C-alpha cells in the first residue's frame, strides 16, 4: 500500500499541472482582455472565448486542494495556515474574477462594466502571482518547527525565489492566454492577440530560463538540469520562436508544454518533501510524515481512477463543442430591423 503515497503525490502534481494548463490561459485572457478588446463588444467577445470553460477549469484548483487535504492532511494544514494572508488575497482575487465573468454583462452601464474589467484584470494577475509564491515557497523552504507548524511572520513568505516563481507564472499565463486568444478570436482581435504575444514572449522566455535554473539550484547540488527543467527552457524558447513565426496552433502547444513543465519541475524538485523547512532539514514535511492512512488512500485511489478519466472525457468534449472562434460582430449591438411600413398591401 505504501506505493499509494507516491501515487497520490503524482496525482496532486497532475492536478496542479492541469489547473495551470487550463486556468492558465483563463488567467492570461483575464489579464489581456482589456488590451485585446478595445471596445465593449471586443471585451465581451474575449471574455466569451472562455465563458463556457473557466468555471470547470477552476475546479482543478479546488480538487487539487481537496486532494492535498485528503491524502496529506499534515501538508494541507501547514501550507494553508502558513500562507494565511496570501490565501485570503488569493481567495479575494478568485472571487472578484469569478464574479466579473458572470456579472459584467448583467447590466448595461459603462461604469459597471469598466469596474468589472478592472477587477477581472487585477484578479487574473494576482491569482497566478500568489499561487506561484505559494508553490515556490514549498520548495524554497519556510521556517517550520518539529511539530510541522509554521513559525515565521508574513514577511518570511516573501522570499526571492517564490516571488520570482510567481512573476514567472504571471508571464507564462499571459503568453498562454495570448496564444489561446490567437486561436479563438477573429479579425483585428486576432491580430492584437498575436501582437501582444510577441510583446510578452521575450520576457516570458527569459523568465522561464531563469526560473528553471533557479529551481534547479534551489534543491539540487548537481550541475546539469534535469530533463523536465530542460523541457521548460526548450518549450519556452520554442514558444517565443513560434509566436514570431505566426504559428498560432503550435505556439499554443508550446506555451502549454512550458506551463506544464514549470509546474512539474517544482514537484519533481520537491519529492519526497512536500514542504521544506528552512529551520532544519529534519523538520521537512515529506510525503511520508504527512500522509493519510493506507485505507483512505486506497479508497480515494479507486475513486480517482474511476472518475478522473470521466472528467477528462467530458471536459474534452466541452472544448470540442466550443471549438469555434468567437467574433466581435456577435456582440455588437444589433441593428434594429426596419419597422414594417404600415398600409403596405399584401404584407400581414
Amino acid at each position, binding site marked *: 500500500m505504501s506505493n499509494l503515497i507516491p501515487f497520490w503525490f503524482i496525482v496532486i502534481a497532475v492536478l496542479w499541472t492541469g489547473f495551470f494548463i487550463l486556468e492558465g490561459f483563463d488567467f492570461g485572457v483575464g489579464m489581456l482582455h482589456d488590451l485585446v478588446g478595445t471596445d465593449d463588444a471586443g471585451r465581451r467577445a474575449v471574455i466569451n472565448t472562455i465563458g463556457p470553460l473557466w*468555471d470547470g477549469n*477552476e475546479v482543478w484548483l479546488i480538487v487539487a486542494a481537496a486532494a492535498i487535504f485528503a491524502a496529506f492532511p499534515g501538508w494541507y494544514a501547514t501550507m494553508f495556515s502558513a500562507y494565511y*494572508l496570501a490565501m*485570503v488575497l488569493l481567495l479575494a482575487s*478568485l472571487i472578484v474574477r469569478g464574479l466579473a*465573468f458572470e456579472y459584467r454583462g448583467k*447590466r448595461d452601464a459603462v461604469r459597471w462594466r469598466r469596474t468589472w474589467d478592472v477587477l477581472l484584470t487585477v484578479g487574473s494577475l494576482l491569482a497566478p502571482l500568489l499561487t506561484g509564491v505559494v508553490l515556490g515557497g514549498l520548495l524554497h523552504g519556510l521556517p517550520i518547527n518539529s511539530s510541522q507548524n509554521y513559525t515565521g511572520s508574513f514577511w518570511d513568505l516573501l522570499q526571492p525565489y517564490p516571488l520570482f516563481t510567481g512573476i514567472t507564472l504571471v508571464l507564462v499565463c499571459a503568453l498562454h492566454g495570448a496564444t489561446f486568444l490567437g486561436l479563438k478570436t477573429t479579425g483585428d482581435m486576432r491580430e492584437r492577440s498575436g501582437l501582444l504575444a510577441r510583446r510578452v514572449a521575450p520576457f516570458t522566455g527569459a523568465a522561464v530560463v531563469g526560473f528553471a535554473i533557479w529551481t534547479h539550484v534551489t534543491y539540487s547540488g548537481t550541475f546539469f538540469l534535469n530533463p523536465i527543467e530542460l523541457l521548460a527552457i526548450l518549450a519556452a524558447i520554442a514558444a517565443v520562436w513560434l509566436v514570431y513565426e505566426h504559428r498560432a496552433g503550435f505556439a499554443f502547444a508550446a506555451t502549454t508544454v512550458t506551463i506544464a513543465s514549470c509546474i512539474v519541475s517544482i514537484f519533481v524538485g520537491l519529492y519526497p518533501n512536500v514542504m521544506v523547512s528552512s529551520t532544519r532539514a529534519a523538520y521537512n514535511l515529506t510525503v511520508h510524515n504527512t500522509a493519510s*492512512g493506507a485505507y*483512505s488512500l486506497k*479508497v480515494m485511489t479507486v475513486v480517482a481512477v474511476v472518475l478522473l478519466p470521466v472528467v477528462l472525457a467530458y471536459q474534452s468534449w466541452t472544448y470540442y463543442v466550443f471549438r469555434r472562434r468567437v467574433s466581435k460582430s456577435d456582440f455588437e449591438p444589433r441593428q434594429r430591423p426596419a419597422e414594417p411600413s404600415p398600409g403596405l398591401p399584401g404584407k400581414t
Partner: protein
Amino acid sequence: MNVDLARWQFGFVTVNHFFFVPITIGLAFLTALLQTAWYRSKNDQYLRLTRFFGTLLVINVAIGVVTGLVQEFQFGMNWGAYSRLVGNVFGAPLAMEGLAAFFLESTFLGLWLFGWDKLPRRVHLLTIWAVSLGTVLSAAFIMAANSWMQHPVGYKMVGGKPQLNDIWALFTNPVFVWGYAKVLLASLVTGAAVMLAVSAWQLRHGREPEVFTASARLALIVLLPAILFTMLVGDELGVIEAKYQPMKIAAAEAQWTTCQPCSFSLFQIGGGNNDQTPTEIIAIPHLLSLLATNSWNGKVVGLTPLQNQYSQKYGPGYYVPNVFIQYWAMRVMAYLAVLVFLIALWGVWLIRRKTLATSRLFLWVAVWSVVLPFLLNTAGWFLTESGRQPWIVQGIMLTKNGISPTVSTTWIWISLIAFILIYATIGTIDLLLMLRYSRQQLPPTRAPAEADEPVPAVQY
C-alpha cells in the same frame, strides 16, 4: 480569543455560503423540470420560463461557487490542528465531492448556458440534469463529512488519530441519511419559495398571468410536499441526534433535569446557560418526548446529569452548548416551517379554486414569504452546529483544540474583516441583480415558424 474569532469567521462565511447553496440545488432541479416540460410539450411558455429562471439560477451559482472556494480553503487556514488530526477521514469526502460533483456541476453549467444553439435538444436537456445531479451529489459528500463530525463512524483510533477504516459507514451513518434528506428537502423548499415569490410578484403586476400561473403552480406543487417532508424528516433527525448527541436536544428544550414524560414549551422568558429556571409559557405535555424519542412517554436526560456524565467520561470541562441559541434556533426553525407549510397549503387550495392568479393577498404574502426559508435554514444550521459545541468532532476533539496553533489574532482579524467586506459587497450585488432580473419581462415568444430553430445561447 483566537478560537472565538475563528468560529465567528467560520460561522459568517458558512451561513453566507448556505444562502446560495439551497437556491442552487432547488432552482437547478426546478429549471430542469421546466426545460423537460418544454422538451416534451414543445409549449413555448416553458422555454420562456426555463430561460427566465435559468438566469436567476446562474446569478446565484456564481456566488455559490466563489464562496465555496473559501469553504474549501478555510479548514487548513483556521483549523489546522483539526485538519491534521482528522484529514484522513474528513478529507476523503471533500476530495470525492470535487471529483464527482464540482467538475460535473461547473462543466455542464457552461455547456448548458453556452450550448443552447450548439447541442441537440435532447443532449442539451441532459446538461441541465447533469448540473442538477452535480448539486445533489455535492451536498451528499459534504453532508457525509459534516455528519461524521456530529457522529463519528467508520474509523479506529491509531496513535491518538482517527483512521478511516470503512468508507461506507460514512454514507450509512444515520445522521447522514436523515440530515442529507433534510438538506435536499430544505433546498427544494428554498428553490420553490424563490420561484413562487418571483411568479407572485409578476402576477401582482399583471405580467403574463398564464405563464406565471404555471410557474407558481409548479412551485407550490413542489413546495407543499417538500416542507411537509422537511418537518417529518427533521423530526426523525431530532430522534437520532437525541441518541448520539443528547446535549444538543436537551439544550434545545433548555431541559436541565431529566424528565419523563417531557413537555415542550412554546416560549420562555429568560433562560440560557446561567438561568436554569426560565419562565415557560404554554408547555405542551408529552411533545418533547415525542420529538426526541418518538414515544409518548419517552425519557430525556437533562443537561446537568449529562454534564456530570461527560465530565466523568472525558475529564473535567464544560460540555453544555449555548442553551439560549439551541432553544431559540429550534423554535425559529419549527415555527417558520409551520408557517411555510400553511402558506403552501393556502396556495394549493387557491389552485384548486382556480383563483391563484387573482388573490392579491396571497400573492403579497407569497412574495414576502421568500425570506422564510433562509431564516429557517440558518436556524437549522445554528441548531446543528452550535449544538455540537464544545466539540469540533463529537467525542474526539474539542473545538478549542482544533485551531491553527501559529495563526495570530491579527491575521484572523484581517481575514475576518476582509471576508465581511467582500461578502457584504457581493451579497448586496447579488440581491440587487436578483431583484432586477426577477422583475424583468419574460423573454419574448418565438414565432411558430421559429419553433424548430435553435434557441440562441446565453452569453456573458
